[in-house]
């Protein structure tokens, strides 16, 4: 079916619209959003298999020929990311049932989540730079609502800062697109790439490349543009935080990957060098934050920054091996970050606090939760049979092959810091003497644990099945290493 690749966008869009009419009945909202998200997941899996068998899928919307209309492009990379996004959204929706509270649910919560899914899937699928801006705005607008929904004081305070930063970065995105349009005269990403290859990377294009880096770096929280993230992500409730932490920053990283592998690959001595330096500082800053705090949310939030640094480092090395590692690590990190946020969410629900020093002894009463968290922690750090291992191995090997010993070593050492930070949660939260927590027995712990466990299980399968995933991942990196594959698929020459 030729319209297959629009389904992961269309299904949540229709659902979001339908859900607006059903705000009064929470039950109907839950049923519809679960069914439709399962539908989105199924559609994206079918899409993934189609791309695997038949190569890159494209649609020219309304049948306008490629550079003139808007083209949606699903190569292996975007199909993988769309599938992961749909899975994570499904788990977060399941988690929300018992955790978000009826007052928020009645206030368009599920509808806004579907809009967020539209924005993220759209940003992964589009083949047009201005259309990407529009999908960014769809995603951001939904995230503004999600961050402030409920209207507590901390949410109001932090959402003002979050919105301000994103308004500025959106204006910069518009400016960057305007400058790019004035130089190449096209908005279609394949066409832009082709034209840049023809004229070579003029100095003005390097300037635009750095401008794009600033824009996407603000979305993806790389050094020195990460300053808004720890405060803003601390404010919203846990399921929203899980969505943000696993999806939003990765859209920024994906955009850096796409623009730097498709448009701006001619002057690597400058652009990719810059990217590498920023990535390493990001890793260090994130690592410092992760070990500095005694707050479970803060620890995992700083781990997002570490992972973004590692991913951007993978982009900066720009060899086939490092791209493979980077794609592998992106999928792993999306899944495992969502899982970790959901699991610490359960811990916070039980204990009623996010301060690690007030927790302790959860292992006795909740062994399943404890072991799941431990597996997730090991996967995050990249212990061999689990999913974090292969990605980081390939990134570091790519770095060493390029002779970047110091930075590869820092990436390697960051694993230790990450491991220390999450094991600190495990040792202080699950070991030690058990404590009494008021209101603990009324919490639906098993129900809340299941979505996190599904994600951890996925991550285990992903790690153990690395052999199966490898050809898929290398198909995803083909278009990154060799942009003509992407261009030919879109412009059909």
């Amino acid at each position: 079916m030729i319209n297959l690749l629009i389904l992961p966008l269309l299904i949540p869009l229709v659902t979001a619209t339908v859900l607006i009419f059903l705000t009064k009945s929470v039950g109907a909202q839950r049923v519809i959003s679960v069914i439709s998200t399962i539908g989105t997941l199924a559609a994206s899996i079918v899409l993934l298999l189609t791309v695997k068998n038949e190569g890159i899928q494209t649609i020219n919307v309304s049948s306008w020929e490629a550079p003139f209309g808007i083209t949606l492009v699903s190569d292996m990379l975007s199909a993988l990311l769309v599938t992961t996004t749909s899975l994570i959204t499904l788990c977060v929706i399941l988690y929300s049932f018992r955790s978000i509270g009826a007052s928020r649910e009645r206030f368009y919560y599920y509808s806004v989540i579907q809009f967020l899914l539209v924005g993220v899937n759209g940003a992964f699928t589009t083949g047009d730079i201005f259309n990407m801006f529009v999908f960014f705005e769809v995603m951001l607008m939904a995230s503004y609502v999600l961050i402030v929904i409920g209207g507590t004081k901390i949410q109001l305070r932090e959402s003002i800062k979050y919105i301000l930063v994103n308004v500025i970065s959106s204006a910069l995105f518009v400016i960057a697109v305007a400058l790019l349009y004035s130089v190449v005269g096209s908005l279609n990403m394949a066409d832009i790439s082709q034209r840049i290859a023809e004229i070579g990377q003029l100095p003005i294009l390097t300037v635009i490349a750095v401008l794009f880096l600033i824009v996407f770096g603000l979305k993806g929280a790389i050094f020195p543009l990460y300053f808004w993230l720890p405060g803003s992500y601390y404010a919203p409730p846990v399921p929203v935080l899980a969505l943000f932490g696993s999806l939003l920053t990765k859209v920024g990283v994906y955009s850096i990957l796409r623009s730097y592998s498709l448009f701006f690959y001619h002057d690597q001595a400058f652009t990719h060098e810059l990217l590498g330096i920023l990535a390493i500082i990001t890793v260090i800053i994130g690592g410092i934050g992760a070990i500095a705090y005694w707050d479970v949310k803060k620890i995992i939030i700083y781990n997002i920054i570490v992972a973004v640094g590692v991913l951007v480092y993978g982009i900066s090395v720009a060899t086939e091996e490092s791209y493979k590692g980077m794609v592998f690590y992106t999928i792993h990190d999306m899944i495992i970050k969502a899982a970790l946020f959901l699991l610490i969410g359960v811990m916070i629900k039980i204990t009623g606090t996010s301060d690690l020093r007030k927790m302790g002894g959860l292992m006795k009463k909740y062994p399943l939760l404890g072991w799941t968290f431990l597996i997730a922690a090991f996967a995050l750090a990249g212990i061999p049979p689990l999913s974090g291992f292969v990605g980081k191995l390939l990134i570091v090997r790519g770095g060493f092959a390029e002779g970047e010993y110091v930075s590869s070593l820092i990436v390697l050492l960051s694993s230790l810091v990450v491991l220390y930070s999450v094991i600190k949660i495990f040792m202080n939260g699950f070991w030690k003497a058990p404590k009494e927590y008021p209101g603990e027995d009324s919490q639906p712990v098993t129900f809340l644990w299941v979505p996190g466990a599904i994600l951890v299980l996925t991550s285990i399968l992903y790690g153990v099945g690395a052999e199966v995933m490898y050809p898929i991942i290398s198909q995803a990196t083909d278009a990154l290493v060799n942009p003509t594959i992407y261009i030919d698929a879109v412009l059909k020459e």
Partner: protein
Amino acid sequence: MEILMSLVIGALLASAVYLMLSKSLLRIIIGTGLLSHGAHLLIITMGGLKRGAAPLLGEEAAAYVDPLPQALILTAIVISFGVTAFFLVLAYRAYQELGTDNMDEMRGNEAND
């Protein structure tokens, strides 16, 4: 003509940055308004300001102005309009709840709310 526009856009962006660095929330929102004006004018300038008819085929002119930047601006305008409306209401709510519009007083750690 483009040089003149560039100077005007530069002035707009400079005042936007100045306003956004101030303490009062309303001045910051006025700054974001100026910022989006600057960005939109930049699109129309970067599309080229050559003389031509308005992009209506009924004009039957020899040359038209580039219609694409105009469509882009129209999209960007409504988006920034939506975001600004949301931001203004949020500022109003924050003023009601927090009792201040001074960004300095909105600092503070998570614990003290």
